């Protein structure tokens, strides 16, 4: 039985902008998580790139912040259907972090403080498509939104933008991450509405 609740529309706004299918516009910034917010002291924070053999690159907070960073704008599309447009960030491009790295890996698994992981093709991290972001809206990234630093990959659903990122593991074979292993789409293109596995 389908009951329509008279006069109920929820928190959505009308959009005269083009959104990916099934999305609605939000002006706030919902906090969604699968676990407790990690609190990582900056003097212990690090970001690593590793493969099956070991750590290829490692930065602590100081050496990470010494890298050239850029400001950029991004539209965010969450698989829970909210979209937030034109958000402003500052971060280090994965092109910078991966620069001159010789690898024949095809995929990457991003992993976070806590136990969250998410997988994506390595090529989706390159060519100005991905950043390790540490400032949002002109301020240091708050812990509830993934601070001190999160992965940001705006062309995919936001679950691929791992909060509290601590590194990426390069892989020769794809391996599903936290949500990809439980029904969510392995790739997650919002414009092709790839929310769930089998779509």
């Amino acid at each position, binding site marked *: *039985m*389908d*009951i*329509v*609740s*008279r*006069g*109920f*529309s*929820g*928190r*959505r706004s009308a959009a005269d902008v083009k959104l990916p299918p099934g999305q*609605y516009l939000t002006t*706030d910034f919902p906090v969604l998580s699968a676990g407790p917010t990690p609190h990582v002291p900056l003097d212990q924070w690090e970001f690593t790139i590793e493969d099956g053999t070991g750590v290829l690159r490692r930065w602590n907070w100081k050496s990470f912040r010494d890298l050239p960073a850029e400001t950029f704008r991004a539209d965010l599309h969450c698989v829970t259907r909210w979209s937030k447009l034109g958000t402003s960030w500052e971060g280090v491009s994965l092109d910078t972090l991966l620069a001159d790295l010789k690898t024949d890996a095809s995929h990457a698994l991003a992993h976070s403080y806590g136990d969250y992981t998410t997988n994506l093709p390595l090529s989706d991290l390159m060519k100005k498509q991905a950043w390790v972001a540490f400032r949002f809206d002109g301020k240091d990234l708050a812990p509830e939104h993934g601070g001190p630093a999160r992965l940001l990959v705006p062309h995919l659903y936001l679950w691929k933008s791992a909060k509290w990122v601590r590194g990426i593991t390069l892989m020769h074979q794809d391996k599903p991450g936290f949500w990809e292993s439980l029904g969510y789409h392995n790739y997650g293109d919002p414009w092709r509405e790839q929310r769930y596995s089998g779509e």
Partner: protein
Amino acid sequence: MWRPGTVVVLHDETATARTITLEVPDWPGHVAGQHVDVRLTAPDGYSAVRSYSIASAPNTEGRVELTVERLANGEVSPYLTQEVAIGDRLELRGPIGGWFVWRTQQTEPIQLIAGGSGIVPLMAMIRSRVAAASIAPFRLLYSVREPGAVLYRDELEALSNHGQPVNLTYTYTRAVPKDWPRPPGRIDAALIATSTWPSNLVPTCYVCGPTAFVENAAGLLSDYGNSADKIRTERFGPTGDRK
């Protein structure tokens, strides 16, 4: 799984909280402490689900009362407290819960600790006790921001007067009534010691409210000597909204 309930009574408890009475055909009955999930569906199919504790005592009339607190940024509570009209239908799932419940067969001392709208399932327990003419001794420690936020005030007054079943202590976190002996603040060890059952009486404790409130109160009950299996908790969201 989802059944329709028709709104038959609306009653404003405070400036921001409203009790909605629903008539639910084939309602199987409930036990005090259980909750229902309420689903709202917009005309375009968008839906939202929230959990609300049942406020009413178990009854055989197929009626369920929910008390909803309106949250400033809520998506559902403003609709339920301001838009919903008599005759409207809501979809319900439940009753749900077998742990955070008080059954009329229980005879041991009961300690209830409520934070804000956490009073709702505990009120169902109190109402259940009264309806069943149980002799289980009840104590309620009820924490609110300020006096105007108290739910069910008249009913609680009547039940806590001398000789009545519920020993009631109010405590306030932001603003206190005139001449109140205790400054506003969180529940602390001293208040637990003066207002709750001595732990050697082995009460069953029920703590309900926002998560931070529950963690504080449950921790204090434990420090006071109540064992973990005697402390049952139900957490609302940090803003008081469940999910």
